[in-house]
């Protein structure tokens, strides 16, 4: 794997000629000697169309940069797409499910994947990856895209972070992880939570939100941690009124809005969780929470509480 960085991503691509006359700023209010407009000719930051337009042009550029896929001396050459999918008798879990293959060598074809202005070139060996990177970078320059060569990362099986994750392909396996800094920070946050638990079992809301935010980011790399954030979610949402002691949402509770003049006797007899439309028909100033399972019992509770009630 190797990294290629595109310099000044948006400015590499020209605006459409039909848009140019309408895209600019009037400098007259700021400089009295100027009476003309300054026009943009290239995609710029904060233009609504810039992300879509630039990525589109970049993808078209990548297509040309990869070169003719069926020319044998092209490092991105492939003549076969291998489907190694579950259910087939020959399924091999150590191989990718879908891959472009060069049948002459049996290895995966060279390729380049892009994330906005960061490109990662892939090859089956150091030399192959170098070839893919060289071709990609030279064609980018040919097409007028800036190659920020100072940010180039040489081919390696232990390449650095890309799109927030570190991927290593050495020792015969693929390993995806976060950077050591982020891992240490995540461990630090968990230690803080543990301290709070052992001390007085109370948390500051803002701090817990910050921890959740960071751990959610880590989960992008480690999806199996998703379930383990549930406790933080529940703790943060426990203040809401339809939650129980542990923060779990109370089942079969529905918010019904009723007319201010609505008396218990006027309640529709069929009010229940399964027919919310009945309740939605009567809009309202009083918020009543009804237990869906027993409309008759709710009537009496509404009578006793009179106005805004909270029934569990």
């Amino acid at each position, binding site marked *: 794997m190797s990294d290629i960085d595109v310099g000044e991503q948006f400015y590499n691509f020209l605006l459409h000629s039909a848009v140019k006359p309408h895209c600019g700023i009037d400098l007259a209010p700021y400089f009295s000697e100027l009476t003309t407009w300054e026009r943009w000719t290239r995609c710029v930051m904060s233009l609504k169309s810039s992300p879509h337009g630039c990525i589109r042009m970049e993808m078209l550029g990548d297509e040309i940069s990869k070169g003719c896929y069926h020319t044998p001396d092209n490092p991105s050459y492939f003549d*076969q797409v291998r489907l190694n999918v579950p*259910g*087939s008798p020959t*399924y091999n879990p150590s191989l990718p499910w879908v891959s472009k293959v060069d049948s002459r060598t049996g290895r995966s074809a060279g390729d380049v994947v892009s994330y906005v202005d960061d490109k990662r070139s892939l090859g089956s060996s150091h030399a192959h990856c170098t070839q893919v990177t060289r071709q990609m970078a030279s064609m980018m320059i040919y097409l007028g895209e800036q190659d920020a060569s100072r940010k180039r990362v040489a081919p390696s099986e232990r390449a650095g972070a890309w799109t927030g994750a570190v991927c290593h392909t050495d*020792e015969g396996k693929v390993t995806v992880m976060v950077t050591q800094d982020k891992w240490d920070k995540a461990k630090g946050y968990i230690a803080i939570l543990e301290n709070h638990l052992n001390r007085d079992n109370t948390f500051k809301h803002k701090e817990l939100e910050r921890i959740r935010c960071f751990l959610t980011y880590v989960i992008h790399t480690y999806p199996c941690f*998703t379930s383990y954030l549930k406790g933080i979610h529940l703790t943060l949402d426990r203040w809401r009124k339809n939650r129980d002691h542990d923060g779990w*949402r109370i089942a079969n509770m529905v918010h019904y809005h009723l007319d201010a003049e609505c008396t218990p006797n006027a309640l529709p007899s069929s009010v229940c969780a399964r027919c919310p439309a009945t309740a939605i028909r009567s809009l309202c100033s009083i918020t009543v929470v009804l237990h869906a399972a027993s409309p008759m019992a709710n009537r009496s509770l509404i009578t006793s509480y009179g106005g805004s009630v909270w029934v569990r």
Partner: protein
Amino acid sequence: MVVLYGFADASGPGFRSTFLSPAEIQYRLGPWGRDLSHASSNYRELCNLVNAVDYEHLDQFPVLSQAVQAISAEVIANQGSSLELFMFTDNSVAEGAFFRGTSSNTKLFALILQLRQLELQYSLRLHAIHIASKRMIAQGTDGLSRGDTFEGVLRGHNFLGFVPLQRGALDRYPGILHWIQCWTPSFHVIPLTPADWFVKGHGIVGDSFNTDGVWIPQVSYSSSVIFLWSPPPTAAADALEQLCFSRHKRPHLIHIFIVPCLFTHSFRKRLLKFADFSFYLTPGRRDTVWPTSAFEPLLVSIFLPFLSHAPWTVKGSPDLLALERDLRSLWLMDEDGDEIPLLCHLWSIAQLT
């Protein structure tokens, strides 16, 4: 490297599961105890899934334990190996809950956590896959509750034959192509092979070289061509990614994406988000197209060209929404209703005819 396939089913009175191991087929069945007989069906289904996996690791069925031990030895020796397990269930909540990794139901969440712990403890990669109940019946796991051990795989039928994850819709029933051509009369429908996903699916129809000798792809600008993507369910996510790249690069192209409703957690959300028009063809509605033996519905999604003005896409336009409603009500009112005229109307809404 070990891959296991298993079916798990639960109902009012009891539970059952079957496993395909490298050596043999194992099955497990029994009644629920008093503690679970009144629990919700979603809970029982997921509980059975957990138990089926768990029991494989414990004493009841030593196959998986042996596999895990073998893998542990291999991991120690080779520093890298894993076990992959495909569990099929006819409960969509179980699939959804496992895939999301969370649930608002306390008991379901506890079961999900148990599955996750199993994954981490045994270096297991688990896939929970929803299938139709009728497939479960045909496969034989459903019949186990009645003590019937002479159905489906237990009768000797091929286990993998009930796991069509590797076959696309067109591969399973080629008659679909003719059906699609019926409602795309003024278009030329091109079915794409996996190799075409990376080339033809992107609109590249030939090669040319500029004066510098640089390869420039020849692109299809024809508005009467439709690319038909028919990937296997397990490869649908990759095919869809290529389709999205293609649509971003060349928004004038028209695509139809058909895929059986299996392994849907990997692609359905994205597919329904990006497609302009989608509908489900239930099995048996058109016996020559998607017969009852297909078990799961066929998801058909249509990607129309972008508009040259806001809102840039036809999706969500009143006419298209009305068409969706008409299609649904047609099949609701009359099972044999002819959908072809309605689908033909789609092209006039998109101003392509």
